[in-house]
């Protein structure tokens, strides 16, 4: 029984692909493709111009190459930038109109949209390849004035909000992958929480890359107006394919006065097979702006998938007394590589930030924590606390810590701590003595190692994440 379970777990269980007819934009990246995307999404003229502006800048930009995990050059002309299930030409009005195959896919993923609608209170927005397929619980949210829909819908229905905030945190003048996303982004989620409203349920998006040769470029925009609160969850999977697929999303968060945004990610893209073949390149730009006074943005991430993870969810603490938090677990096994961390940029007075990062590497993998804490001259009385711990399993893998610390203010404090170690023999011995086998013992110890971060996740996710931590490390000990 257990053997079968282990076998099931060892294999990437989201590795199936769904046979659905797709509409794709012609292969390649050029103005026509961008016009095609804009056209098919019936976008207003300003947005098309915005995309083209980004594209023009992209032409002169160079891909960054300072990261630790190197990868073969990506041929941007050999990708599809838009892929949508055919039945989606007109967006379905309700779940009943959805392609049954799609529903089945989500069922397999463990997100039975139909059921979720009735059972627990999580509003889900599911993104399949390039389009958002379904958003549930819309009515309940609408009553409170909360807007939770796909970004395409928001562009149509709430253009003033989109126009005001899109690109305000990640401008089109940003780095290569962010600019690429600005030019070709297809869909994603949009959340607006009106002043003083505490969102009554967790909002959740599930991303799925299905079609091959497709890059996924979603764009998420979350705005928490004065005094509001929202917690947002994000999950991701992709089928097993031999080639590497690119995922370059942009996520922008804006928190106004006294608002709080909690953003949690459980990233489980296909990591490639045991020999490092295939898998997703997860090059995501996530940035939150604490624009108003007393605002707070908190990132929590559990990164177990992807062949290469390269991302730094960041907080710009502009408003006085604002708070930024970053909790991360990153696990790499086999030939996976990760270069991840955060940036905390303190601009306002009395700003506080906290970074807790736990990295675990096993097999032949390579893991880097890279982070920046920058306290600017006017950020009086600010403070930062950083703790990054790494755990190594075996001597074929690597764990690296590269923090950048910049302090320009004499009233501010920065403290940074990092340790690297392995699971101690004593701990293992203790657990085994009490009847656990070595894999269970390692799972238990690793979960304890990650506890500080797992605690930050919402209930529903914490259980999944805990399981994921165990699964990701199966087969790495013994």
């Amino acid at each position, binding site marked *: 029984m257990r053997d079968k379970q282990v076998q099931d777990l060892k294999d990437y269980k989201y590795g199936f692909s769904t046979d659905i007819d797709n509409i794709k934009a012609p292969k390649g990246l050029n103005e026509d493709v961008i016009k095609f995307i804009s056209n098919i999404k019936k976008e207003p003229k300003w947005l098309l111009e915005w995309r083209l502006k980004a594209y023009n800048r992209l032409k002169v930009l160079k891909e960054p190459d300072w990261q630790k995990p190197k990868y073969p050059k990506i041929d941007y002309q050999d990708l599809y930038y838009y892929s949508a299930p055919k039945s989606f030409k007109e967006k379905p009005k309700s779940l009943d109109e959805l392609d049954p195959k799609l529903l089945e896919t989500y069922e397999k993923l463990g997100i039975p949209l139909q059921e979720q609608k009735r059972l627990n209170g999580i509003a889900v927005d599911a993104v399949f390849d390039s389009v958002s397929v379904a958003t549930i619980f819309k009515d309940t949210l609408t009553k409170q004035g909360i807007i939770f829909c796909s970004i395409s819908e928001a562009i149509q229905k709430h253009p003033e909000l989109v126009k005001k905030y899109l690109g305000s945190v990640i401008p089109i003048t940003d780095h290569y992958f962010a600019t690429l996303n600005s030019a070709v982004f297809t869909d994603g989620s949009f959340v607006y929480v009106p002043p003083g409203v505490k969102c009554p349920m967790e909002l959740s998006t599930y991303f799925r890359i299905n079609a091959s040769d497709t890059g996924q470029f979603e764009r998420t925009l979350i705005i928490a107006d004065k005094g509001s609160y929202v917690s947002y969850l994000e999950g991701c999977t992709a089928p097993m394919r031999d080639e590497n697929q690119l995922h370059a999303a942009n996520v922008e968060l804006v928190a106004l006065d006294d608002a709080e945004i909690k953003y949690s990610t459980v990233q489980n893209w296909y990591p490639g097979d045991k020999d490092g073949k295939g898998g997703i390149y997860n090059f995501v730009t996530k940035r939150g702006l604490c624009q108003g006074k007393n605002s707070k943005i908190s990132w929590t991430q559990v990164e177990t998938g992807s062949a290469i993870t390269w991302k730094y969810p960041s907080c710009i603490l502009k408003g006085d007394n604002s708070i930024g938090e970053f909790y991360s677990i990153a696990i790499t096994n086999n030939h996976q590589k990760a270069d991840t961390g955060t940036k905390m940029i303190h601009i306002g007075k009395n700003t506080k930030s906290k970074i807790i990062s736990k990295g675990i590497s096993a097999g032949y993998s390579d893991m880097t924590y890279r982070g920046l804490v920058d306290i600017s001259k006017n950020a009086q009385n600010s403070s930062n606390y950083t703790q990054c711990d790494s755990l190594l399993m075996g*001597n074929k893998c690597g764990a*690296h810590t590269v923090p950048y*610390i910049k*302090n320009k203010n004499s009233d501010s404090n920065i*403290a940074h701590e990092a340790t*690297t*170690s392995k699971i101690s023999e004593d701990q293992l011995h203790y657990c085994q003595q009490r009847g656990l086998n070595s894999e269970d013992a390692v799972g238990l110890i690793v979960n304890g190692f990650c506890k500080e971060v797992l605690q930050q996740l919402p209930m529903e996710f914490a259980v999944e994440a805990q399981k994921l931590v165990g699964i990701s490390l199966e087969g790495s000990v013994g």
Partner: protein
Amino acid sequence: MEKQLRTDFKKIIDSSNFSEKEIITKEKYLNKFIQNGFPGKKNEDWKFLDLNQAIKSNIKNLDYFNENLPNEVDPKIYVDGLEHNKIVFINGRIEKIDFKYEESDKFEIKEQFDSESLLNDVNSLVDLNSALTNRYYKIQVKEHYTVKKPVIIYSLTTSKISSKNINIRLDFDLETNSALKIIDYSIDKSENNFVNIVYNFNLEKDAILKNYKLDKEENNNIKYSYNNINLDNNSVAENFILSLGSSFIKNEINCNLNGRYSSAFVNGIFNLDNNKNHEIRTSINHLNENTKSYQLIKSVLGENTKSAYQGKIFVKSNAQKTDGYQLSKAILLSDNAEFNAKPELEIYADDVKCSHGSASGSLNQESIFYIMSRGLNYKEAKELLINGFLLDVVEKITDNEIKNLIKNIMGLKE
């Protein structure tokens, strides 16, 4: 710049007697430097300290050829109260060597150029040094010999020179079970020169090196120092850097722990005021089992100053049982001060104990209050706290005589 470099290079070659082969080697380094130029902000290792910019804005028409005119050594410069051996450089030229406390067959200095010992692929400044240095010296400590008195290497510049590039290069060989203490002591009477110093140490089994660097006098030169230390089994390298006087200085120390049970220590102090810009960069490479490293760097930063610490601990996959530790702390006394740190760990072995910490902030107001409530005034209280903060690093020095010398220089009282 290229034209100037090539003509100055020719002048250097003409005025020395290098063999055909040596000239070709030197030319290779020159070409490498011309290709890369002075490192600037774009270079990751120079992110916090832009040398290219500093040279551009402070030195007009940098001259790479140095006539090396002889100078008189003024005995007044010698350090008081410490018996020591001396090597005196004036404007990049050795003027005096005095090893009177030592046995001459056990401890010697030779002029010899060995192109094998040139350091490759470090950075463009080391290439520049390899290309333009005109004399090479090797200091040799024979096996089982402990050099009795410390060697002070005086590096003087006189007011005669300006806008010059001075390159100094020394090799040190510490044979099995030998020991050497050196102190780098710079006295600058010149302005706006670029001083580029490269030392290469080779420690054989059981050798002990104590390497102290004192930069205490106010001056306007731009300085760079690179020390490479190779350590064999059981050898120990202790380094201490006192970074006070120069307006712009970067000290780099690279330790290769090649042998088992070898260990490296790097401790440093920045105590800066008046627009000074200092950096220490270390890289400790743990390349074998049971090696150990320890680093402690403390900064006190006054008006318009900037200090940076980049420390890297690298652990190769076979270097099990490595013990690596790194701590950097800074006190910012002014709102115009800036502290940058990049404490880096790159680890490929699992059975290791590696950690680093970094903290920066202001003086603790409660501590000041506590001291003042016991009758000291604000200034005294502040001084007391800063002294205590820095004394911690000085106490790490294992040689008592030199520790006291450094305490005197810094005006630290216990």
